[in-house]
């Protein structure tokens, strides 16, 4: 099996997932609607005062994304399970980690699009001015999403095949994502307020390290959890 074969396989799986989602749109639309609704509800919980909203914006954005992400990850394997397509997929020749990598890419595209919408809605609803350091904010968003999607896709591969998938996935996933949440929220918060303490750099490196550790770990272990 050459690297070119693996790459083709990854692309095929990612493309299949993205196409399914693009054609039906039902999943995507409802997840986006859910994310926006939670942002509105956070707004009610935090009160109409503009300053309080602005300060909480980074936190609410990530919590909304986390919740929406769980719905997305559950879907990503559920569609296949319902159609009985997961077993044939596993029977195809080729290394199993490519299935994970393909799903990961599709989920990145899916959650990345949700993120873009959630960010725009947050900026508007919470009256956050676009900070000068927006490229760094973008980097934080990307790194945080990679961390979220990596573990989300991995845990969904297990949790969606259990009896209690709705509750099990967040139960397994959220404690694992505490570092991502803390790092992404702290870095975004710092950057939005001008980064006077120069702490955003450390958080960005931390996120990068987290992503590398868990990307490697999930790619190595996926083979073991999918075979059963």
């Amino acid at each position: 099996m050459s690297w070119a074969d693996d790459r083709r396989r990854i692309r095929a799986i990612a493309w299949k997932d993205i196409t399914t989602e693009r054609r039906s749109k039902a999943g995507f639309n409802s997840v986006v609607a859910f994310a926006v609704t939670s942002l509105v509800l956070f707004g009610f919980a935090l009160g109409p005062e503009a300053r309080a909203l602005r300060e909480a914006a980074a936190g609410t954005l990530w919590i909304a994304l986390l919740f929406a992400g769980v719905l997305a990850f559950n879907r990503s394997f559920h569609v296949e399970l319902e159609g009985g397509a997961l077993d044939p997929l596993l029977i195809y020749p080729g290394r199993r980690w490519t299935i994970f990598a393909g799903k990961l890419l599709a989920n990145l595209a899916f959650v990345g699009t949700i993120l873009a919408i959630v960010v725009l809605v947050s900026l508007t609803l919470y009256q956050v001015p676009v900070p000068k350091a927006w490229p760094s904010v973008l980097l934080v968003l990307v790194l945080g999403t990679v961390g979220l999607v990596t573990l989300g896709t991995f845990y969904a591969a297990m949790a969606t095949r259990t009896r209690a998938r709705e509750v099990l996935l967040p139960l397994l996933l959220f404690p694992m994502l505490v570092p991502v949440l803390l790092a992404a929220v702290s870095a975004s918060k710092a950057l939005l307020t001008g980064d006077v303490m120069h702490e955003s750099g450390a958080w960005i490196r931390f996120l990068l390290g987290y992503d590398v550790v868990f990307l490697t770990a999930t790619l190595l272990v996926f083979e073991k959890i999918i075979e059963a």
Partner: protein
Amino acid sequence: MSLYLAPSRRWTTFGIFAFLFLIASQAYGFTTLPDRDMGHLQKILYVHVPAAWMTFLSFLVVFIYSARYLISKRETDDLLAAAAAEVGATFNGLTLVLGMLWGRPAWGAWWVWDPRLTSTLILFLIFVGYLALRAFVDDPQRRAQWSAAVGIFGAINVPIVYMSVRWWRTLHQIQSSPSTMDPAYVVGLRLNAFAFLFVMIYFIRKRYELARIARATEFAADQVALGGA
């Protein structure tokens, strides 16, 4: 390989010894002088600190046996990891409760967002997730493989969570830390540490025996249902 494991008398003796040791350690704790500042409150640390140690130790066992399972594929490794996870979660809960009982009078709050407290709580949630996953998966091989992955990832995450919470706190305000221990109390702490260690080993062993008996029963039932023996 038969999964059935007969409970042995030697382990029962060990269990009796462990609990006697635990009682003796508590008795010793009551004979020591109360702390100058905190009085008898100080003595919660005798049990709180060892409970925390045992939490980490059992999670280490979960990590080692989960990794071993993924390599060896022996079901017994998985059952031992599960036994350690259950005992670890118990000690973890105990650590949190004892810490709160101490924190309320000493710090004036049941809970503070201290890095150590917070990461212990996260660790507890990871354990709970691990046990929930096991409860919701019926196929033994699947259950073993998946919980091994969750156990390994959880263990990898422990230092990362601790670091993230510490940064989160220290970058904003000065970290509060529990008072360090006076040398006079070291004996009480050591005695309890060993008592907890013995109790932990006994609990893990007992859970492991039970798990093997339960699995052997399931296996036998399957055989009968299939028209075998």
